């Protein structure tokens, strides 16, 4: 039985709308509640916080080798430098940590595993002194053979990145292979693959490759730690995950006497996350350093170069795909092997591999399916969450392949997708069933928007115009018990403070949470304040990742608002002897359907209660709390087939189309028009959804057209800067971007909403690759699809 369906099945028969029941705030593009603060430049980010003259600064000693044994560390010279307060090495902190797999070190202890890994830190009174001190630490290394490639890492004689893998603890849904570099191997086996290929009229096999990418948030990572005399550790971090950070800090540093109650994480606004500020990366260093200098705050601020080479990167992927299709255009079989380069530590990245493995069929009904998603250690920097969480990578191969196969069979690639697109109730790769979805509507709307089937000609004879349309889907990747919670408090004037720990990362979470509460309680958004969290005061939220907070945190806020509403109605029923079922909230008043002249203003009672006829007061401060956990989810399944669990809570689907102009000689590409339709269930704030669509597309196109992390043979990143790691500027905008909102309600979402943040970037790579082929007849199978690749391929094809 599908628990989700049971819980969330919409009630049969439409109810007629009664007073106070139509949506007035949800669905409106109300202005962002953090807008003015940010526009004025007044919003505070972590690096803006003032800590007075006692603030200490840390600088790191970093590994110059991709793989080496640390023979000795001499800190004596650095310690003698005037202004240096402390020099810390791996000898001071031997604890391991990790989100899903405990494989990462605070400082390298005896082995370094990537170029740039932290080996020691110097804490000083001034950032310059700290850097000079770091230059005085002498480390002797013995270089070891290293492995830089996920496929080579599987060879028998490959160097092992983690020889002790067997002893590492990890979540129960990971399947590492000790004695190899395989950190996790997600297998999906469904149907009869051999029969599927026998039934196919065309079988095509190919390999697609995707390099690593960097998030390039404008604000670099920063963290300030203070360990005070009361034994508490306070951390100010630029983070998507304050509670997860608190947990990791407390768990990792518990041998210093810290428990969860002693650790406090305060998160300000953050200048872009995109997954890069999820989990814990450099923040653990600041936490550890704070313990070594009790009573003084210590700050660690990443440089742009460190931002590139020592946070999470997006995993590189080599995708081997074999697909069978019938003449009628049905996918009969799919054998998909994904080899992921996850880097030196995979504590977060292995879950990307897991998520992609569960969903690599794409938004299509594939009855005979085999997926092997393999997480491999390499001696490159650690990889982790990045907007899209593995889906962009497999979609590049899958959606390229589908267009190629459709064309080869003489089928219309868009019609092909329409035919195979998944429907509500279809069996998912892991056996559970698909949620309601508007994918067909999305395909249709985009098809019209780009005038699919109408060949266009450039005015410039050197240029050709190509079109493409692809589909996408994505689910939040999270532990089955990832939960959200909210507190809501009324104030004397009827205004509200909402406390949540979902992070405002630019997506507009604070505004959307205010809209949800506003809708339930009839209090205008302007009278609701929602701010970034402090883990001491705000209730728990797992992390702001996976495009799930509008859904998860939104559900918690809605429940908190409903609880407050219940308390209000109970009180009014008790004091005024009105039947609760006749009461409703409107325009900050309690009103009654059976007594039209009854109207009780919130500000008259939400703190001080209602005065009864005997002059006593009833009630008291109105507040509500709400908790949401997806109780139908389960990550446990058969390791050999992936069948049996319900790891994903829901999928958001959509389609995107492009009109691309390509210069045949230079390879230069210009996006004339791009349209993206996404089924967000319910757009609580349509402008914010449109913002996600435009922003996601730009970020996606950046990864296809320009970005590319390049390493030399020694594992050193060659372009940790914006001179040679290009992200688009305003001059590189598409001519026209058309965001399309589809709303097929998610039954368990707040007002029907489901996630939308990551999805908008993941279709970009196959869009470009397919449109390039449509325009100039060449197929690029490795990302990025640069103009250089296109021009040289066109030139080669001419010969």
């Amino acid at each position, binding site marked *: 039985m599908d628990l989700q369906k049971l819980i969330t099945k919409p009630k049969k028969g439409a109810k007629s709308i009664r007073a106070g029941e139509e949506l007035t705030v949800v669905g409106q593009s109300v202005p962002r509640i953090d807008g003015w603060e940010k526009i004025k430049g007044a919003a505070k980010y972590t690096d803006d916080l003032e800590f007075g003259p006692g603030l200490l600064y840390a600088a790191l000693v970093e590994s110059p080798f991709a793989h080496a044994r640390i023979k000795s560390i001499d800190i004596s010279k650095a310690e003698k430098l005037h202004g240096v307060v402390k020099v810390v090495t791996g000898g001071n902190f031997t604890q391991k940590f990790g989100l899903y797999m405990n494989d990462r070190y605070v400082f390298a202890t005896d082995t370094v595993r990537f170029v740039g890994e932290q080996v020691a830190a110097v804490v000083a009174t001034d950032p310059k002194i700290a850097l000079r001190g770091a230059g005085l630490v002498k480390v002797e290394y013995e270089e070891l053979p290293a492995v830089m490639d996920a496929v080579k890492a599987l060879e028998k004689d490959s160097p092992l990145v983690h020889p002790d893998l067997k002893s590492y603890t990890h979540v129960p849904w990971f399947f590492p292979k000790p004695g190899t570099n395989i950190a996790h191997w997600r297998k999906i086996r469904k149907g009869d693959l051999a029969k599927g290929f026998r039934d196919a009229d065309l079988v095509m096999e190919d390999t697609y490759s995707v390099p690593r990418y960097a998030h390039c948030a404008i604000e670099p990572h920063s963290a300030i730690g203070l360990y005070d005399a009361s034994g508490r550790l306070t951390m100010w971090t630029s983070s998507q995950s304050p509670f997860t950070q608190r947990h990791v800090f407390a768990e990792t540093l518990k041998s210093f006497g810290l428990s969860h109650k002693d650790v406090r994480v305060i998160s300000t606004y953050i200048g872009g996350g995109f997954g890069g500020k999820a989990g814990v990366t450099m923040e653990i260093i600041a936490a550890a350093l704070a313990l070594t200098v009790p009573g003084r705050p210590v700050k660690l601020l990443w440089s742009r170069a460190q931002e590139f080479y020592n946070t999470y990167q997006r995993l590189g992927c080599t995708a081997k795909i074999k697909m069978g299709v019938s003449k009628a255009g049905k996918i009969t079989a799919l054998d998909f092997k994904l080899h992921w380069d996850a880097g030196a530590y995979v504590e977060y990245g292995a879950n990307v591999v897991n998520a992609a493995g569960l969903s690599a069929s794409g938004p299509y009904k594939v009855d005979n399916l085999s997926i092997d998603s393999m997480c491999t250690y390499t001696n490159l920097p650690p990889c982790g969450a990045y907007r899209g969480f593995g889906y962009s990578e497999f979609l590049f191969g899958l959606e390229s392949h589908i267009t190629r196969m459709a064309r080869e069979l003489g089928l219309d690639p868009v019609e092909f997708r329409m035919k195979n697109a998944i429907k509500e109730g279809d069996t998912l790769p892991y056996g559970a069933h698909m949620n309601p979805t508007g994918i067909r509507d999305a395909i249709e709307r985009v098809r019209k928007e780009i005038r699919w089937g109408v060949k266009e000609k450039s005015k410039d004879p050197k240029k050709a115009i190509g079109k493409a349309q692809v589909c996408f889907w994505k689910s939040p990747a999270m532990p089955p018990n990832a939960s959200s919670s909210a507190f809501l408090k009324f104030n004397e004037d009827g205004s509200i403070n909402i406390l949540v720990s979902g992070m405002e990362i630019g997506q507009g979470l604070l505004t959307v949470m205010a809209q949800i509460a506003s809708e339930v309680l009839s209090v205008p958004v302007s009278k609701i304040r929602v701010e970034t969290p402090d883990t001491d005061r705000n209730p728990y939220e797992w992390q702001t990742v996976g495009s799930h907070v509008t859904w998860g945190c939104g559900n918690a806020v809605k429940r908190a608002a409903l609880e407050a509403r219940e308390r209000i109605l109970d009180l009014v029923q008790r004091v005024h002897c009105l039947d609760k079922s006749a009461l409703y909230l409107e325009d900050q008043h309690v009103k009654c359907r059976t007594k039209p002249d009854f109207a009780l203003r919130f500000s008259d009672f939400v703190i001080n209660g209602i005065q009864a006829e005997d002059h006593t007061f009833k009630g008291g401060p109105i507040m509500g709390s709400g908790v949401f956990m997806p109780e139908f989810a389960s990550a446990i399944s058969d390791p050999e087939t992936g069948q049996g669990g319900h790891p994903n809570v829901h999928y958001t689907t959509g389609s995107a189309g492009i009109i691309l102009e390509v210069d045949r000689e*230079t390879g230069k590409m210009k996006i004339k028009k791009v349209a993206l339709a996404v089924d967000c269930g319910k757009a609580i704030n349509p402008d914010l959804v449109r913002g996600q669509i435009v922003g996601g597309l730009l970020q996606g196109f950046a990864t296809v057209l320009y970005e590319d992390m390049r390493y030399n043979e020694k594992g050193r990143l060659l372009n940790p800067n914006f001179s040679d790691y290009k992200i688009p*500027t305003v001059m590189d905008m598409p001519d026209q971007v058309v965001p399309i909102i589809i709303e097929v309600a998610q039954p368990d979402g707040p007002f029907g909403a489901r996630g939308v943040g990551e999805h908008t970037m993941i279709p970009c790579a196959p869009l470009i690759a397919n449109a390039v082929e449509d325009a100039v007849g060449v197929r690029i199978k490795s990302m990025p699809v640069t103009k250089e690749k296109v021009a040289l391929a066109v030139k080669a094809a001419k010969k």
Partner: protein
Amino acid sequence: MPITTEFEYIKPKDMDEALHVFSVYKEKARVLAGGTDLVVHLKENLARPEVVVDIKALPELAGFTLRDGTLRLGALVTFSDLIASPLIKSKFPLLWEASLTVASVGVRNRATVAGNICSAVPSADSAPVLAVYEAEVLTRSLKGERRIPIADWFTGPKKTALLPEEIVTSIELKLPEKKHAGCYMKLSRYEGEDLAQGGIAVLAFADNTYRLATCALGPKPARCPGTEAVLSGARLGEKLLSKAKETILGEVSPISDIRSSKEYRLHMTQIMLGRALGSAVARLFGKGAKYGTENIC
């Protein structure tokens, strides 16, 4: 990111003081004008001077003038100064066009033309333009003045004919007397700020003669005399162009690096040559794209 290296900062009030400092410190002194290269190099410890000499207070280095057909660019003239000047736009539109392709607005507001040729990276956008205008670089030391033709200025990647005790005071360009038009075609990874992966400057004259120079297609920016000779005297047509495209391949020697492969650079050398010539000739007849447009490949 803080600068950790220590140095003396000097801001001379007159030229004599500045030249004295350079005569004493030589290679250990570095000029600070725009600072867009120097400050980055200081942060990355690539430059470790003992003295940084800020020349921004020296009045004789400021501004630019056009007198008797000679444009004199003081060493402190920035790319934004040139872009903002109607004089440059009307009389030296090719210099104006190339200036627009240098980095970003913020960098152009500080970066100087003299600094661009002193840094002497192979990709310097101003270099091919100065080459086709046959500019001269004026330098000074306590020993006196020198006048160095731009053709002799670049001696290798990041190397110039400037002596350690000298500073550049100005750059002079002669306005060609014959009717002419130009084009600077730049190969870039995108529309935003980028270092040229290749650049070709063309000056086309009404008598069917041409001056061509490249950047980022060899160890140093350079003229292409062989290609100029092929083109000289005849009307530009398909046949002539294809001969020129063959010839220019012998005059460039691009490398493969993180920004581009040798193969693509060679391919684009030919494409850019054709487009730059086409654009310059069209402009000569009052047609073609406006300066500052359609010149990023």
